[in-house]
């Protein structure tokens, strides 16, 4: 009996959370098209998300590209190794690893920061103050973050694509002793626009997810410093899981009828 009560309580709270996130999402999206707009806040967030995440994402990408080349070399037949490795590196990076890893890194960096900042504003009544000063908190806080998250992540991923492929190239050429021109040529040969586009679409969706959850958890945080801490954790964990789930679904949409 106790078990069913437990089960019931938790599924109820799960559904009410899903409901609240949906309402929040709809409100946020509607508010994107209702003035006032804050281009300056959007620009500042884009710099924060896009520019200041570059080192983290760049380092992640370069090591990932390097390890990909190394791993596939040990795994593949020596036959046509340049082609196989270039293929593995460029496809895995552009389709999967750059968007997913950049997404997870940015979730840790930006999602957490958004939840903490907005959460602190919530518990110190700054959000209430915004409303009393004729400023809609959604327009002022949530919309700029969601727009910039959605815009900035694809740019980050383009950079991650280039750096990741470069990491693979460095290992292939300098460690495995491949012919540089041949390797680059193979890379170009294998890459299709759809690979890059799907990666960028993923990045956009991930950016949306990260900023949405960061804002949502911050906006609904309660109970002082502890509540803000919980909001931060929930924002990062929630975004990470949703990113991985969304990644599967987008991959399914893009590539299910190709292979």
């Amino acid at each position, binding site marked *: 009996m106790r078990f069913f009560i437990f089960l019931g309580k938790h599924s109820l709270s799960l559904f009410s959370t899903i409901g609240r996130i949906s309402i929040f999402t709809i409100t946020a999206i509607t508010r994107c098209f209702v003035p006032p707009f804050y281009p300056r806040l959007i620009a500042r967030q884009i710099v924060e998300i896009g520019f200041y995440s570059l080192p983290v994402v760049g380092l992640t990408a370069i090591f990932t590209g390097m390890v990909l080349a190394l791993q596939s070399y040990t795994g593949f037949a020596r036959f046509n190794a340049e082609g196989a490795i270039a293929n593995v590196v460029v496809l895995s990076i552009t389709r999967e690893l750059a968007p997913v890893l950049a997404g997870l890194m940015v979730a840790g960096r930006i999602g957490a920061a958004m939840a903490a900042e907005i959460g602190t504003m919530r518990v*110190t*009544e*700054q959000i*209430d*103050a915004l409303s009393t000063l*004729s400023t809609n908190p959604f327009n*002022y806080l949530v919309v700029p973050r969601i727009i910039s998250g959605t815009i900035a992540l694809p740019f980050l991923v383009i950079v991650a694509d280039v750096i990741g492929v470069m990491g693979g190239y460095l290992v292939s050429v300098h460690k495995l002793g491949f012919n540089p021109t041949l390797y680059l040529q193979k890379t170009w040969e294998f890459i299709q626009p759809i690979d890059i586009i799907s990666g960028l679409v993923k990045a956009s969706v991930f950016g949306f997810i990260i900023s949405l959850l960061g804002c949502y958890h911050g906006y609904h945080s309660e109970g002082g410093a502890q509540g803000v801490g919980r909001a931060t954790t929930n924002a990062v964990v929630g975004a990470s899981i949703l990113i991985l789930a969304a990644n599967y679904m987008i991959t399914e949409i893009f590539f299910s009828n190709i292979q």
Partner: protein
Amino acid sequence: MTQKKNKISIKNVKKTFGSKIVLNGLNLDLFSGESLVVIGGSGTGKSVLLKNILGLLEPDSGSIKIDGSEIVGINSKEKEKTLSKIGMLFQNAALFDSLSVWENVAFPLIQGKKASKEMAKIAAFEKLKAVGLSEEVAELYPVEISGGMKKRVGLARAIVTEPEVLFFDEPTTGLDPIMGDIINDLIVSCVKTLGATALSITHDMASAFKIADRIAMLYQGKIIWVGETKDIRNTGNDYVEQFINGRANGPIKMEFRQI
């Protein structure tokens, strides 16, 4: 006061949080141009009352009219318009900590009234001077100033748009008696010079005597007494007497263990 025109009228407002009844059919009228102070113990729902009027919380039932127009249950667009008549000093000032002191004060002008940055800055400095803060303080950030200064900045921010109605949530709590008195004087002079209607909340009787034309006492979700300030010493109401004399023994029992 010759003609008593209602600025705000609150009828039968109920507000509960879960099973906890905070406001239980509260009635209160605020006349144009007067300064009304609501007194009551900690946790009796004074801040909740203000937040209901400000539309930050939605009453479960009842009616709240500002200048005759209902604000309970109307859409947010209309609500925003009505509420832009109100300036609010929050209990903990609720300054935006990402903005400097003068930017905080200029915020309602820039965001709400679409003033230019230069104009807003001049007005902000003027108001800061009015509350006794120097130009050096104006460039600091909220974390760098003391609690008393924060209250003054909050006050400057609340009055900078010269609203018709001003709310003060415990303006003197947490300040030393001298600073408390300075704030009281500032409130009195602000209300006088603006000709505004003021609703303040406090449990500091010295402050109440200083700023109030009328005093209302909130107890168990209802206004149990309201009248002219000069009459409060001899109300014949045991609750009021216990409260204004600050006695531990009397009809009011502090609910220590009530969740």
